[in-house]
């Protein structure tokens, strides 16, 4: 089985994440049958790593052999792009029996349906790699990071869970940092803490978007955050 060719899966860059689309989602996370996505591995384990807006899936493919025991899921809103990732994973599983069983992709709108798929505190890691910048002020509400969505991400993340972000757009980097730092359920990791994490170096070039930025000699800004417990006392 050959790897899929990207030329058949190209699609317009942006789709409106706020409009209604045809998405299938379970009414409750318990109703979702994960064994379709992880036929070889699914048993008692749940998805722990989530790549939000995974694009062509490069991060999943890189992390899969590094964490063979963890289930990882990519979320992608575009029909063709998510189908490409799916075909890519199926082909990899055939070419490398026993491998790539822990990664899968799901087409959904991550801004709307996360609580339908994941329980409170289920995730250990979330990734936002090169998210769409939505430069215009009027489109800022489409940004995948904002004050209100961070509450949803905090809800599905375990305490001490980690959020990784990288972008080539300085303004978006600053926007993400401000929103995470202002949110009481997140704190930023220091430079020192990043050094010991083997995932950090993979953020730069695992994905197709990261490789494109390298080709164009673009800058890359990394920021990583930890989900902390609520300090609120009444």
């Amino acid at each position, binding site marked *: 089985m050959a790897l899929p060719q990207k030329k*058949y899966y190209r699609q317009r860059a942006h789709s409106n994440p*706020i409009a*209604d*689309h*045809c998405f299938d989602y379970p*009414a*409750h*996370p318990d109703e979702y049958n994960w064994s379709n996505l992880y036929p070889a591995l699914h048993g008692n384990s749940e998805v722990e790593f989530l790549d939000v807006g995974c694009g062509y899936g490069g991060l999943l493919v890189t992390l899969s052999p590094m964490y063979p025991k963890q289930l990882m899921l990519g979320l992608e809103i575009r*029909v*063709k792009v998510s*189908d490409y990732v799916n075909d890519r994973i199926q082909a990899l599983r055939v070419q490398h029996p026993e491998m790539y069983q822990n990664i899968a992709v799901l*087409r959904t709108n991550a*801004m*709307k349906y996360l*609580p*339908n798929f994941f329980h*409170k505190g289920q995730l250990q890691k979330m990734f936002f790699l090169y998210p769409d910048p939505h430069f215009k002020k009027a489109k800022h509400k489409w940004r995948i990071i904002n*004050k*209100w969505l*961070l*509450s*949803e991400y*905090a*809800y599905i993340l375990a305490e001490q869970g980690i959020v990784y972000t990288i972008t080539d757009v300085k303004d978006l980097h600053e926007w993400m940092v401000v929103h995470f730092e202002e*949110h*009481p*359920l997140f704190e930023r990791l220091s430079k020192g803490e990043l050094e010991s994490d083997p995932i950090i170096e993979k953020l730069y070039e695992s994905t197709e978007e990261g490789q494109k930025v390298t080709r164009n000699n673009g800058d890359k800004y990394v920021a990583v955050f930890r989900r902390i417990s*609520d300090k*609120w006392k*009444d």
Partner: protein
Amino acid sequence: MTCLSASQNNLAVARGLHVDYYNFTKHSYLDVPEKLNTHDDHICDITISSDSSYLALITTVSKQLIIYNLPQLTEYKSFILPRSASKIRFSPNNINVLVADKSGDVLIYDFSKENSGTKLLGHLSLLLDVLQTHDMKYIISCDRDEKIRVSCYPNTYNIQTYCLGHKEFVNHIEILPHNDKYITSSSGDGNVKFWDYVNGKLCYNINACLDVDNNELCELFSKRMDEEGVEVLNLPIVHYAVTKFNKDSSLIAVTIHSFNKILIYTLQTIDNQFKHQKEEMIPVQKFPAAIMFIKCSLILYDDIDCIVSILSVVNSNERITFQMDKQIKMFEDKIVNFNVKLSLDAIKILYKRKFDNVQEYQERKKQRIEKVVQ
């Protein structure tokens, strides 16, 4: 959209930009200032505080939130909302008003202050109801996307949980009157659900649309919605009201789309075990525009003839029934020109029109692959 509110000894009905406030001896009228020259501006929600000291209302086009003193009916505070709202509710201590709006935001207004109005939380879906628990610790909101969200208060950035399981929009939520550990909800999926809201656990379900003793109604509605590209399997619940009956049970009133009977249930919880019983189906001439309970009296409002009916409970040994107690003509000595929109049609916009771009893509892909094989 609710055009009726009542507490122990007063009731208020809204029509267009006008309110008839009745204290069971006399009617007083109130006219909301016309801010714009639009004819469709109207009051879309009205509510009386639990201590009967305030009346609050919101308008559709001019987006006003106005709080009046009761019983004088003098204006106390007014605000302009940032976005069109669907529902307002007083906080349990009656010092704030919670606003649920159509863009998915919940706002809080402290009406003792001038420039109040703070966003507490946001869904990415039209909100239909909001409430605060009696202990003030949680704000609960529900939306067009089948979701009920439980947020901590005042730290609303912390989502306690979601109550998930409805299959269509959730149009009403209430604290279970006889046991405030639970909330109850109604939905376009025709079901009433009961939840342990701190843990987001579904405790009990009443499939109310199964009690509609006329199958044609559902077929008719499905057909009409099908023409609009929406697949509907059950008749939606339109109105929902609950009240405490005794220490172990609550009385529930439900209206179902196009069904001219009011379904009455009792819901009992003994040692956290839920049980329900259908008590009565009250036939009505016209589908009511609003229903509610005051203690164990059921209030119905007919907005075509502007009649409020009060039915009181008759508790014979075995079954609970309702009996007409009195009828009150509203807006009798005031002419109000306003075309009431059928609440039965309003519900249609809450369904999501689904367009499927996946199937078409898969078809084309199949053709491409077949071509290569040939």
